[in-house]
């Protein structure tokens, strides 16, 4: 990076390139560092979850076996042996770590399948909710946030602020029930829950998302039915995420609006829509990207509650069942997966910063 210096017109610093010393590409260094931190974080996650489920009064034996089985010492012993619960704690932990490195996440105690299979089965269902939600929420949230910032202090702004607060204060499970009541029970417009009506069977699995897979297989009636089942849960999740986003976008845009360069843009005679679209939006995007990471996090939390109301067999449901059953492999699997997703999201966010703001890019 070369700086152009001021000086008397005669003495101009040349910006001719000097031979650069050989250094690792800064982006690779950055990624390598992040990878190391991620690995450390995931390790920490395993420790925490492992410790949590084991060093506490809860006992997977009592949580998973029926009362009858509990009375039979042979069954209990067999259960313990099967799940390695009779081994010392640290041995269990290292065994688990070893398995992880070979891609074996263990077998879920409640489903009997491998945790990896469970994840493959349930994660796409949640993604089918999360992706449309994020896209819609970002578009709507950014738009409304900008609108409120530009009309700061006026009625639109007040309305938006109150609306956002309302959205943030609404319990997701309650909103789901209300929405279900209105649109399904009273108006009969939407299906009652689940991913597909009983008349249809799921399309051949490609991504695990019914709408996409059905469209890929040409089963348009299935795709349409799956899409209809998406509407209500996505509506609920989007509303809540928009509420979160709008506040951040609004305050970010307000800060930008105070800046001289916005005034300078108007002073050049540029029409308002150009100033808003090119100058305001671009400057305000960095905080928006930041909050998208946060929004995604809260989205995953929200799915736990929303999925239970809509009977949506996704990661949230799985996490809940695993937690209540103290199903260690499942809990670990879910935690690791979620932590991994978070880190990926954060990484994407950081990379996006560099894309948007040249000041960060070049440092």
């Amino acid at each position, binding site marked *: 990076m070369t700086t152009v210096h001021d000086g008397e017109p005669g003495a101009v610093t040349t910006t001719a390139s000097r031979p650069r010393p050989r250094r690792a590409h800064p982006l690779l260094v950055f990624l390598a560092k992040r990878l190391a931190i991620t690995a450390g974080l995931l390790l920490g996650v395993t420790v925490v979850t492992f410790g*949590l489920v084991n060093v506490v009064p809860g006992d997977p034996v009592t949580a998973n076996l029926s009362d009858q089985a509990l009375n039979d010492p042979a069954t209990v012993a067999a259960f313990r042996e099967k799940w390695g619960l009779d081994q010392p704690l640290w041995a269990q932990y290292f065994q688990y770590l070893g398995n992880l490195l070979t891609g074996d996440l263990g077998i879920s105690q409640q489903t009997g399948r491998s945790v990896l299979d469970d994840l493959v089965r349930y994660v796409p269902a949640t993604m089918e909710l999360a992706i449309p939600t994020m896209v819609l929420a970002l578009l709507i949230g950014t738009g409304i946030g900008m609108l409120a*910032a530009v009309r700061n202090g006026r009625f639109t702004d007040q309305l938006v602020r109150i609306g956002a607060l309302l959205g943030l204060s*609404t319990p997701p499970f*309650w909103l789901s029930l209300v929405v279900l009541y209105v649109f*399904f029970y009273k108006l009969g417009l939407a299906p009652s829950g689940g991913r597909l009506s009983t008349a249809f069977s799921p399309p051949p699995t490609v991504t695990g998302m019914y709408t996409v897979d059905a469209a890929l297989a040409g089963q348009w009636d299935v795709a349409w039915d799956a899409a209809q089942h998406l509407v209500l849960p996505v509506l609920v999740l989007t509303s809540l995420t928009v509420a979160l986003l709008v506040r951040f976008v609004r305050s970010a845009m307000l800060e930008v609006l105070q800046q001289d360069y916005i005034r300078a843009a108007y002073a050049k005679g540029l029409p308002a829509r150009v100033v808003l679209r090119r100058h305001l939006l671009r400057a305000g995007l960095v905080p928006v990207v930041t909050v998208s990471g946060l929004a995604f996090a809260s989205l995953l939390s929200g799915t*736990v509650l929303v999925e239970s109301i809509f009977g949506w067999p996704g990661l949230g449901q799985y996490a809940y069942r695993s937690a209540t059953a103290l199903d260690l492999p499942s809990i670990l699997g879910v*935690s690791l997966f*979620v932590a991994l997703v*978070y880190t990926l999201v954060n990484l994407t966010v950081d990379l996006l910063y560099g894309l948007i703001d040249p000041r960060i890019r070049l440092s």
Partner: protein
Amino acid sequence: MTTIAPDPVAPDPKVDRALSRRRWLGRLRGGGSRPIWRQPVTLVALIILGGWLLVALFAPLIAPYDPLAQSPEAYASPSATHWFGTDSLGRDILSRVIHGARLSIPLALAIVSLALLIGGLLGLLAGYLGRLADEALMRLTDLVFAFPQIILAMAVTAAFGPNTRNAVLALVIVSWPVYARVIRSAVLSMRGDDYLNAARLLGVGPVKALRRDVLPNSIGPAIVLATLELGNAVLLLAALSFLGLGPRPPAAEWGSMVALGSQDLSMWWVSVFPGLAILTVVMAFNVLGDALRDRLDPRYAKGR
């Protein structure tokens, strides 16, 4: 440059900082536009909150029925005798909603206070001691942040056994990092200040310096955060009890009441009223927190 007079617009930053601990109190009272209690939305929020506090306080006197008393009038729709109707066991919903306030509000206050205490202390130490302590705190908070709040809370509650005490514990564990981070950055932003260094040079011990100089200046953002987090605590508590991981039934917690109502959609009153209770309480906390933040945190003061 013309030196005409000391520019009154740019005060001396050192003096400014020393005065700022008094300033946030003064700001609360009404520096700037109108005082907090004059703005209409905030006023409404304060009234609502006050109302709920009274309800929580005087619940046994206000509630028409015993919240735990079952009756044969199951699933009665709202009427003159049961304003909010009854649930599947014939219990009066109005009374249960009223008594629910006795659970949600004090528990939320407890959660926030504990988290503030623990997180604030850790953040204070990390910010002041710096270096290793700071790094350790940051990694620890990163670890907690790596889990979605609900999932971590679920795991903790399930692990320790679902009841009120463990739900509170879980939520404290889940929420303390935010306070730690905020207080830590408040402390860090003060470290460069000359008067802190001057105090150190004069031989003022770290504890005294913390208490006298650092603490008053970090209280502002901490209070703002705590008020905002109160609403979140109520929501999380309701979520946990909705999932069956909170106060054990038959306790009248709003979240579990909504869960009960989800069994039969046609009996809408069983879910709607507890949900509205949650909504109004959380909304009131959020509005208040926002108003406080507008007032106390100069970064958000513009663009009211």
